[in-house]
């Protein structure tokens, strides 16, 4: 009797866990879509806020978030990928490397508000960049670095030694073997890590709070030295700081939905690249 029951129990537990995860995802999405969709319109995503942000759109926040994410990627991806290549392909397995790796893992666990304060001290004040898009982008870049390093290293570690040897055996240098064979094979894994990291960065509020995000700006210039609006902060502001909270609630839901859509588009891009890659193999 027990012999028959145990697998059923195991199966049930696993299914229940999966079900619970999906259930909460569906509830959150349903809540967002049902309350946010009525606010969505072309006007909402293409105009500035009006009348003390009780009317109008969220264009500056969308532009801000997109630019910010791009700067984060430009800062974090090259450094992170190079660092991961060094750690996985070149660094000897000694105590120094192990300390570096432990530091990176610890950095990934540092609360994001700490990064915000660090960015304030280093970029805004120390380097006199002021509260600006570039300060916030650099801060988010720092926050993203450890994740990108860890996920890239993981992707590189999955490439078997025989792939590297294949290139070396026909006279490739180590650099050529990494550039032409190892990295192309690791692209799907690296991309997944990069997109997850950027999705997280796009939704961060704490690190940009002191480093460049603005309550309201009436002309989104996109200049690096200007303050900017961003979707997560706009959402926070609309839901807790606005003087007419009840009135702007639909706008808050709309903003949340747009943020989700931006992140979703990011994931879709990665999905498409991975799909194309797997078809080429």
């Amino acid at each position, binding site marked *: 009797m027990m012999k028959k029951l145990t697998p059923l129990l195991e199966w049930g537990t696993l299914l229940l866990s999966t079900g619970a995860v999906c259930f909460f995802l569906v509830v959150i999405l349903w809540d967002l879509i049902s309350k946010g969709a009525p606010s969505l319109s072309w006007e909402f995503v293409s105009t500035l806020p009006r009348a003390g942000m009780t009317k109008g759109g969220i264009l500056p926040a969308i532009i801000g978030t997109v630019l910010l994410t791009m700067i984060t990627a430009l800062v974090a991806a090259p450094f992170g990928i190079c660092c991961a290549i060094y750690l996985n392909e070149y660094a000897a397995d000694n105590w120094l490397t192990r300390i570096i790796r432990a530091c990176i893992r610890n950095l990934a666990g540092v609360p994001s508000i700490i990064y915000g304060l660090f960015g304030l001290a280093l970029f805004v004040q120390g380097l006199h960049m002021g509260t600006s898009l570039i300060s916030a982008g650099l801060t988010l870049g720092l926050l993203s670095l450890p994740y990108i390093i860890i996920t890239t290293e993981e992707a590189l570690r999955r490439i078997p030694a*025989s*792939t590297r040897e294949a290139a070396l*055996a*026909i*006279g490739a240098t180590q650099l*050529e073997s990494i550039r032409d*064979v190892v990295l*192309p094979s690791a692209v799907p894994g690296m991309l997944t890590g990069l997109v997850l990291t950027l999705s997280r960065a796009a939704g961060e509020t704490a690190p940009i709070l002191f480093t460049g995000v603005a309550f309201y700006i009436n002309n989104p210039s996109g200049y690096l030295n200007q303050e900017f609006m961003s979707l997560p902060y706009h959402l926070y502001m609309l839901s807790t700081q606005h003087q007419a909270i009840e009135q702007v609630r639909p706008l808050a839901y709309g903003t949340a939905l747009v943020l989700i859509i931006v992140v979703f588009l990011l994931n879709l891009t990665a999905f498409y690249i991975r799909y194309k890659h797997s078809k*080429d193999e």
Partner: protein
Amino acid sequence: MSDQIKLSAKDVNLWFGSKQVLKHINISFPKNEITAMIGPSGCGKSTLLRSFNRMHDLSPDARIEGKFALDNLDLYQKGLSVTQVRSRIGMVFQKANPFPKSIYENINYGLAINDVPKADRPGIVENALRESYLWDEVKDELQKPATRLSGGQQQRLCIARAVALRPEVILMDEPCSALDPVSTAKIEELIVKLKKDYTIVIVTHNMQQAQRTADKTVFMYLGEVIEHDTTDNIFNHPKNELTANYVKGHFG
């Protein structure tokens, strides 16, 4: 002429960390012959094979003593680039490891990094595929990803990739161990045909394969060369008792 020595190792000792894997190896491989290296797992035959094209260079805990030579060239001499060594000594691995590129690119890539003039490459690619008896099977789909080929085709592509660089020696590390009998037969046939242009050293666990393909056979045990003779002598008139037991399948 056929007894001219192509590749040799003299007084070779090799350690991984504190473990000695190769002990006092003295061995030579004649030109245009196939030599099989047999022995139980862990006897050091793959390690020895990989020493010739310096595949241990990137293992920090490997320490090598002794002299390896291709003709009269000291393979470990200062100032000799490892890429140069590897373009003269090709290698085929246990598991087919084509690049994640098209069939054409798999061969073309080696030509590109070895600075073969661009205009010559298409001809060399075709020729290499013909030499590996793969041309007729893939000529219409050269742009297809190499990973879509069957295991046996992939391994022949890896041989084509090595052959395309016109090496003098081809090292093969159990090239058929992951293949079915039909693919194995094709590769063995290919190996025997390649003999007229190349010196081949093949590590194998398959006694029949050694007998079918090799002119000479080396039996290794616990990091030492126990016996090195013609294949016929090793299998039918072994001088050493260990060899006799091993080829009869009493251990291994």
